[in-house]
C-alpha cells in the first residue's frame, strides 16, 4: 500500500513538474520545475531499489545540472522576455505527434502489465563497481574521455571573444 502511495505521488510530482518545464513562460520557473522533477525521479529510482542511481541522480542532476541551468537562465535572462510567448506556432503539430507516439509507447507498457518484481531489491553499488572496472572498462574510460572533452569544450566556447 505504502509502495503505491509513494509511486503515485512521485509520478504525479514528476509529470506535473515536467509539464511545467515545457509550458512555463518564465524560464526561471521552468528551470525550478526541472529541478523538482529530477528530484522526483530520484525518488522513483529509490523506489525501484536502484540505490546508487538514486545517489547519482541527486548529486549530478539535482545538485549539478539543475543548478547549472538555473544559473545560466539567470545569466542570460532579461526581464523583457517574461511576457513573450515561450512556445512556437507548431505546438499543435507537436501535440499530434506526441499523441500518435503515445499510442505505440503505451502499447509496449501494457504488454508488461502483468510483470511483478520477483525478488527483493538489494544494494547494487558493489556490482556496479565490479562492472565498471572489469567488463565495462572501455566504455567507462570512454565516458571519462567524453567528460574531459566536454570540459575543454565548455571552457573553449565560454571564453569571451577578447581573451581568444
Amino acid at each position, binding site marked *: 500500500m505504502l509502495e503505491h502511495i509513494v509511486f503515485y505521488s512521485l509520478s504525479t510530482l514528476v509529470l506535473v513538474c515536467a509539464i511545467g518545464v515545457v509550458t512555463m513562460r518564465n524560464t526561471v520557473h521552468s528551470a525550478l520545475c526541472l529541478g523538482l522533477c529530477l528530484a522526483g525521479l530520484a525518488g522513483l529510482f529509490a523506489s525501484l531499489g536502484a540505490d546508487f542511481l538514486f545517489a547519482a541522480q541527486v548529486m549530478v542532476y539535482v545538485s549539478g545540472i539543475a543548478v547549472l541551468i538555473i544559473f545560466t537562465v539567470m545569466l542570460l535572462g532579461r526581464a523583457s522576455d517574461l511576457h513573450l510567448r515561450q512556445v512556437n506556432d507548431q505546438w499543435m503539430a*507537436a501535440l499530434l505527434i506526441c499523441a500518435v*507516439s503515445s*499510442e*505505440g509507447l503505451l502499447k509496449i507498457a501494457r504488454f508488461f502489465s502483468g510483470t511483478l518484481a520477483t525478488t527483493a531489491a538489494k544494494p547494487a553499488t558493489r556490482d556496479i563497481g565490479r562492472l565498471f572496472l572489469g567488463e565495462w572498462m572501455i566504455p567507462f574510460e570512454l565516458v571519462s574521455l567524453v567528460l574531459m572533452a566536454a570540459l575543454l569544450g565548455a571552457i573553449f566556447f565560454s571564453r569571451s571573444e577578447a581573451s581568444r
Partner: protein
Amino acid sequence: MIEHAYLLPLIAFFASLVMLFAGKEDPRSPLPWLGIGAMTACLTIAVSIFWSAAFGGGVLPYERNWRWFSLAASIGGKSFIVDMSVGTLIDGPAAVTLVVVTLVSLMVQIYSVVYMHGDTRFKRYFAFVSFFTAAMLGLVVSSSLLVTFACWELMGLSSYLLIGFWFEREGPCEAQKKAFMTTKLGDSGLYLALLLIYAKVGSFQLSQIQQFFDNGFMPATVATVIAVGILVGAAGKSAQAPLFIWLPDAMEGPTPGSALIHAATMVAAGILLVSKTYFVFLASPSAMEAAGWMGLITAFLAASMALVSFDIKRVLAFSTVSQLGFMMCALGVGGFTSGLFHLTTHAFFKALLFLGAGSVIHAVHTNDLRRMGGLSKKMPLTFLTMLIAVLAISGVPGLSGYYSKDLILADVWNHDHAMFWILLFTALMTAFYMFRLFFLAFWGDDRDHEKFSHAHESPVLITGPLVILAVFSALAGAGLDHDGLVSKLLAKPTISVMPGATAAAVAVPVDGAKAETAGHEARGESSGRGERHESHLPPWLHMTAITLVLCSITLSFFMYRGPTYALADAVKANLAPICTLLERRWYFDDFFYGLVALADQAAALAFWIDANVVDRVFVDGWGLLMLIFARISDAFDNIFVDSAVDGVGSLGNDLGVGLRSLVKEGQVQEYLMYAAISFSLAATLILTR
C-alpha cells in the same frame, strides 16, 4: 650499317628534342646546324645501306626486332600474354626511300637556314622539320604496322605544326586544322584495317602478316576490306580523291617545309604504305582495281585544277596530287616497281620545284604568278634548275621523270587501254601546266615592275641545294634504270605459295591485256625477286607519247610566252563554265565544308538533347515525385499569386520552390519536427502492429 638502321629515326628525333628545348628562341640561333649535322649523319647511314643493298652483298629484306611491351590477349576463351615488338625491316624500297628522305630533308634544312632567317620561331622550325624527318624515317624502317601507324600519325602532327607555323594569320590556322582533320578521316580507315588485321592475324609484324597472307589463311573478302581501309588511309595522307582537299591549302606553311612534307616525302607515305602492305592488295583484285581508278581519277582531277591556278605554290600542290595519283594508279594496276620508281624521282624534282618556287617567292615576296614574269634575267641559276625540274616532271626523255613515267604508262597500257589514254591525257596536261607556270614566272616581260626591280638571285645556301637537287632530278632516273637496278631494288613482292584466294584472282577470265599482266606475275613468281620488270610500251605508242608531250609544251609556250596572253584569255572566255568548275576545285571543298557544317549541326543537336532530354528524363526521373510535388506547389502558388510564373523554369528553380514551401530555411525545430513525424509514424507502425 644495315643492322643499325634504327639509329636513323633516333638521331633525327634527338636532334629535334635538343633543338626544341635547348637554348633561347633567337632568330640567329646556331642550333639549326645541329639538325643539319644530324641529318648528314643520317644521310651517311642511309647511303651506306643503299650501297650495300644495291651493289654490296647485303641481303634484303633485313629484319631486326626488339621486345616493346607485352599485351594480354584472348582467343577462343583462352587468355595469354603476347609480345609486341618494335624493330626495323629494310627491304629494297626502304633502302631507296631512306636515301631520298634524308637527302631531301638535308637539302631543305640547309636551304631553310637562309629562307627562315630572322623568323621569331627560327629554332622551332628546325625542330619541327627534324621531328618530321624522324617520324618519316621511322615509318620507312619500321617492321611493325603499329609503329608504322604511330609514325604515320606523328607525321600528321608535324604537318599540322608546320602548316600552322605562322599561326598568327587566320589562313594557316584553318589550313592546318583542315589538313589534320582530313588526314584523320583517312586514318580512321587505316585504323579499322589495323584492327581487322590484328583480329585475324594476331600480330602487327609485317613479316608475320605477309606469311599469313602467303599461306592463304586470309579470306578474300576480308583482304578486300583491309585493303580498302589501307587505301582510305593512304588517300588521306597522299591526298587522293576525294580527300585531296587539304593539300592545296597546306601551302600556307613555310615553303621549304612544304617542299619536304607536302611534296617530296610525307605525302608519299600513303604510296609507301600501300607498297609495304602490297601483299594485301595482291590478295584482293578488286581493291587493286579500286586503287588504280582512285589514282587515275585523282591524277586527272588535280591536273585539271592546276591548269587554272595562279598561285605558284598551289599549282605545285595540284601537280603533287596529280603525280601521287600516277603512283597510286601504277600500284593499282600491278606496277609496283614503276610506282615506287616514280615516287623516288618525283621526290627529287618536286622538292626542287618547291625550293625553286621558294627562291622565287623569297625574291619577289608574292605567290601570285600574274605578278611575276621575266625572272630569268634576274635569277639565272633558279631559272636553270627550275627548267630541269619542269622538264623532268613533264617526262621529257633523258631526265628522271621520263623513265618512271614511261614505266607507269607501260604498266597501265598492259592493264587497261582506257585507263592508259586518260593517264596519257593527264600527262599531257602535266606538261602543259608545268610549262605554263614556268613561262609565266620566268619568261616574257616583267608585269610588276616594283616586284621585278627588287628581285635578285638568292644566296648560295639556297642555290646550292637547288643545284644538287637538279643533278639528282636529271640523273636519278637514268642512274636507277641503268643495269636493272630499279627492278632489283624495287622488285614486286611475290606470293611464294599460290593459295586459293590469289590463284582464283589471277585465274579470273581476262582479256588480252590482263592475261599479259598475269603472265608477268607468273614469271615473276617462278624466278623470285630481282627479276627485271619486263613491261614496255609498243614502240609506236612510245613515240606518239613523246611527241604529244612535246606538242603540249609547245602549246603552252604559245599561250603563255607573253607579253600578251590573247590566246589564253580567249580560251578562258570560251570555256568559262569549265574554268569556274576547275577554280572551285570541282566543288569538293564545298562538299566537305557541307559535311563539317552537318557535323556541327549534329553536335548542336546532341547537346540540345543532352541538356533538354537526357538531363530532364534520366536525372530527374528518379525524383519524379519531388518534381510532381514541386509542380503542384508551383501551380498552387500560381492560383493565388499570379499565373505569370515561368512555366518552363529550370528544374533547379522548381526544386527550390518546392523545398522552400516546405520549410523555412535553416529552422532547426522544423527539421526536428519532420524527424519527429517520421519517428512517430515509424514507431507507431512498428509497435502497434
